[in-house]
């Protein structure tokens, strides 16, 4: 109904997709084509680092979809990210085969170490890439469905919902720490060898994963954008702003919330699956509540309810984290906490909000300058 705001890709979206496309083209050239001794050559570790940021950005877009548009402040989105990561990790473990320390053809090293004789049922099928990819989406989606169905139907909202999402990820962390869960316990899954037959350590594979992450982020953005610009998206925003009004108009609020929550969880799962081969490990620490809270800070810094802002916030905060943890490691948490306070107090709409404000101010100055 409103041609200016209902376009699938607005100006901001075009810039975002252009930058992503440029990165997907330039990074392979800078890393693989340009000779290593050239000043423009990109070292492989940077490819993996930026690839990791892209996965965080996709997680941020997923979180923005539920928080920024539907008002569901999930403090447990890291759980969906980690579950997607574990599904990918299980595929990668099954690819190791006889190259493991114990050279068992079927069982991963940690199972041999624990003296297990058979592959647990949960691990069946993970030698197949398509099956593992389906699980990357289905497992987080299913958890979100069950959790959301119980929570939204009982009309748990606001801070109570945030607390139980936090409890959810914490409970999963404790569960995954246990060896008898069968997911590698404390150490998690690591020592990956190859992905679809390519060595995960190879620069070419890293570049390919980087490009895949660019595509996933761009695709995730477009899906999220298609959702929020549809009439469905207007209902979702209506739920955020006046839930009971929406209900009295005859919309089944819990169905809408559930749909958005499940979609968002699946996007987070995909982000986690791309993250694991790029960092080379997945362990229960990824379920840590602090990770989920950090993701909320990325979205707040970039600007909630803008999608592009969420991705931008993930980049900025993580770049800051890389810098701080290298230069002043003991101050990073203070910096992060301080950033959150500053953003909440002075930039309620994040960096994107600041840019918009600047534009409005310039636009309002123009006529006075002319007149």
């Amino acid at each position: 109904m409103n041609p200016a705001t209902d376009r699938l890709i607005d100006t901001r979206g075009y810039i975002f997709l252009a930058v992503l496309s440029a990165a997907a083209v330039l990074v392979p050239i800078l890393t693989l084509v340009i000779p290593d001794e050239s000043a423009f050559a990109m070292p492989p570790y940077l490819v993996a680092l930026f690839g990791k940021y892209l996965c965080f950005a996709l997680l941020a877009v997923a979180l923005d979809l539920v928080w920024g548009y539907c008002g569901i402040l999930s403090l447990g989105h890291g759980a969906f990210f980690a579950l997607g990561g574990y599904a990918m990790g299980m595929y990668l473990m099954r690819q190791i085969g006889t190259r493991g320390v114990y050279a068992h053809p079927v069982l991963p090293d940690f199972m041999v170490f624990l003296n297990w004789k058979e592959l647990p049922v949960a691990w069946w099928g993970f030698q197949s890439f398509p099956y593992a990819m389906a699980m990357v989406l289905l497992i987080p989606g299913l958890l979100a469905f069950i959790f959301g169905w119980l929570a939204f139907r009982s009309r748990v909202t606001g801070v109570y919902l945030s607390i139980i999402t936090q409890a959810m990820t914490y409970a999963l962390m404790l569960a995954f720490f246990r060896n008898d869960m069968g997911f590698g316990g404390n150490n998690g899954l690591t020592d990956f060898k190859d992905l679809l037959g390519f060595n995960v350590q190879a620069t070419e594979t890293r570049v390919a994963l980087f490009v895949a992450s660019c595509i996933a982020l761009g695709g995730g953005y477009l899906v999220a954008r298609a959702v929020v610009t549809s009439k469905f998206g207007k209902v979702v925003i209506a739920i955020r702003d006046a839930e009971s009004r929406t209900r009295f108009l005859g919309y089944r609020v819990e169905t809408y919330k559930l749909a958005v929550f499940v979609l968002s969880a699946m996007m987070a799962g995909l982000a986690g699956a791309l993250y694991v081969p790029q960092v080379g490990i997945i362990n229960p620490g990824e379920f840590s509540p602090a990770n989920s809270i950090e993701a909320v800070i990325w979205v707040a810094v970039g600007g909630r309810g803008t999608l592009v802002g969420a991705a931008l916030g993930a980049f900025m905060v993580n770049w800051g984290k890389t810098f701080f943890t290298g230069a002043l490691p003991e101050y990073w948490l203070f910096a992060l906490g301080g950033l959150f306070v500053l953003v909440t107090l002075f930039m309620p709409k994040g960096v994107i909000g600041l840019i918009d404000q600047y534009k409005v101010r310039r636009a309002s100055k123009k006529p006075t300058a002319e007149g």
Partner: protein
Amino acid sequence: MDHSVTTSLLYLDGVSVSFDGYKALRGLSLTLAPGEMRAIIGPNGAGKTTMMDVITGKTRPDEGDVLFGGTHDLTKLDEAQIAELGIGRKFQKPTVFESQSVDDNLLLALKAPRGALATLFGKPAPDTRLRIDQILETTRLKDHRHRMAADLSHGQKQWLEIGMLLAQDPKLLLVDEPVAGMTDAETAQTAELLRAIAVDHSVVVVEHDMTFVRDLGVKVTVLHEGAVLAEGPLDVVSADPRVIEVYLGR
């Protein structure tokens, strides 16, 4: 069921609601004929808003019958189901979707499939534009259609909410204090708007403003302590000594 049950659009009989021991409604009985407009008055705490909550499914009564159209038991349905049956509600405080345009507010309210799949993949009905234009005309909001609802004046928000009710095309409209905080001119315009709506809808208006109720010129029900105290034309009701004592005379 007696004859009156089947012919009245809304039928409340012996409805009681209590919150933590406080009896908000004590055996409230009320019937509304199809096409009727009714004003409900009563002092604070008389149970007006609780009555609305019971009819729209927000609150479940402890006892009593609430029937819509003689057949639907509203005590068994939730808000969304009751809204789908054709009962629209306007809140006491204007409640519109602040961060969306006036147009989009009406689009959301407009009678159309409410399911998630329909809104995600469905195309709007061909007459959508026309129906929104008509409502904008009726509610005098045509010049404001592209503004954010948050930027409207208080009176305009009230009209937008009434417009959203119209867009739902309900059989029954429940309107809670539509003129609270309005200027005299706005109040008169709102009375005119409601009278126009009442031509082809049944309307229940809860209001404190006596001038406004007089402007409406309809049958009045006086609530007091969760039950009906008196019912009839405003002049008759306002002459009733019990009404004067609890409400008008204060």
